[in-house]
């Protein structure tokens, strides 16, 4: 396991450096937006990574409710935490790009912006609940809230979709006709970010396992002392 971790860390470091070079130097400069467009190589892969992590959170919450396997609960917690980090990157880089390109920091009616923001809020409230819960059954409650949050996403999407078609606002230009060289850089960056997310989740997972073992040992110790 140790060797696998070191290998993953090495691969992540290499990929990230290569992706940095590709995004900042090798990728062609966009015609109208100029260099500002390069933030795209960080913004979009972070968003995809965050969505993958939130999906993992949803699936492992369901698995936990069915199987009651503590590993699924730890996975749910870890994926939500790392997902929120990547989602924060998305929400911070978005306005930095939008200000010079759209002329505004934030477009309140835009579907992707608002859906991502609501997603971010939902998962932060999930993490707050986990932190504040005092009952021994936190995993069950957290899993239920995670499922509620995931059910909310399509509703958010549709409500904003209709909202926007009513009140047009600047729409992101991504997708559509992307230069193949740009698409390549984008995918390299995504691979690097996914590796980074994997590495972070792995570290956090081991940490959580160790933390729970320590807590169990402490509880056992105080129990033994009490009976003496």
């Amino acid at each position: 396991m140790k060797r696998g971790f070191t290998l993953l860390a090495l691969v992540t470091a290499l990929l990230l450096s290569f992706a940095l070079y590709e995004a900042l130097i090798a990728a062609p400069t966009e015609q109208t937006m100029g260099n500002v467009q390069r933030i795209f190589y960080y913004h979009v892969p972070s968003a995809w990574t965050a969505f993958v992590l939130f999906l993992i959170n949803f699936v492992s919450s369901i698995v936990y409710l069915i199987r009651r396997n503590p590993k699924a609960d730890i996975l749910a917690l870890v994926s939500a935490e790392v997902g929120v980090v990547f989602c924060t990157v998305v929400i911070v880089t978005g306005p930095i790009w939008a200000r010079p390109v759209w002329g505004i920091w934030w477009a309140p009616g835009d579907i992707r912006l608002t859906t991502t923001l609501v997603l971010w809020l939902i998962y932060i409230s999930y993490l707050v609940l986990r932190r504040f819960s005092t009952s021994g059954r936190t995993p069950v409650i957290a899993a239920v809230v995670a499922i509620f949050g995931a059910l909310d996403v399509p509703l958010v999407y549709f409500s904003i979709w209709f909202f926007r078609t009513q009140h047009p606002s600047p729409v992101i230009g991504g997708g559509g006709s992307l230069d193949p060289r740009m698409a390549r850089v984008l995918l390299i960056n995504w691979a690097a970010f996914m590796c980074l997310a994997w590495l972070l989740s792995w570290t956090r997972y081991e940490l959580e396992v160790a933390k729970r073992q320590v807590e169990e040992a402490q509880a056992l110790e105080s129990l033994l002392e009490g009976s003496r």
Partner: protein
Amino acid sequence: MSFLEITRATLAKDIRLEWRSKDAINAMLFFALLVVVIFSFAFDPTAEESRRIAGGLIWVAFLFAAVVALNQTWARELRNQVLDAYRVSPAPANPLFLAKAFGNFIFVSVLEAVMTPLFVAFYKLRVLGPAWELIPIALLGTWALVINGTFFAAISLRTRSREIMLPLLLFPISIPALLGMVNATTAVLTGEESARFWIALLMAYDVVFTTASLLMFELVLEAE
């Protein structure tokens, strides 16, 4: 006892308690009144402007006020270990949940019935669209608030600072419902567009979360 009997008995008990103490309803009414008054100082709109913003103001006021009632839903059952007694009894969990949700629905509806005329007076409102549509919007919107509110109040029962935990959980999840209520109300008030889509969205929201709550409430009741 059958499902309906348990629901009815719990609901009757809650309404009787509320009728005698009037804790939740008084706090809610006064709170909503304060919000209306403060908003009317903060914005001094013309009749045209107030039609555009009133939908948002009215629902935000109801949402904040509803949290006051929702927080007391289960706290009442903690005294004298009523909830533990319920848990060890053979009664299923869902009738209890439905009774609590109906109770909150009634309390919040009373609040809305009292506060709406005040809103109309303070903001010089005159409805330009089909006014009858406000009734389904109010019913569906209120249910959307209380179904998730009742559920999350049960979840936040065993957390540190539970009074603040409820809005933290409820508000992000309620964003689509709020968008629906506010836009539907604004559509009716201004009469510029149809509120149909928003009413359909509220219905979808109600169906999804009522089903989810009924499927998962037992887990929460056991876990808490």
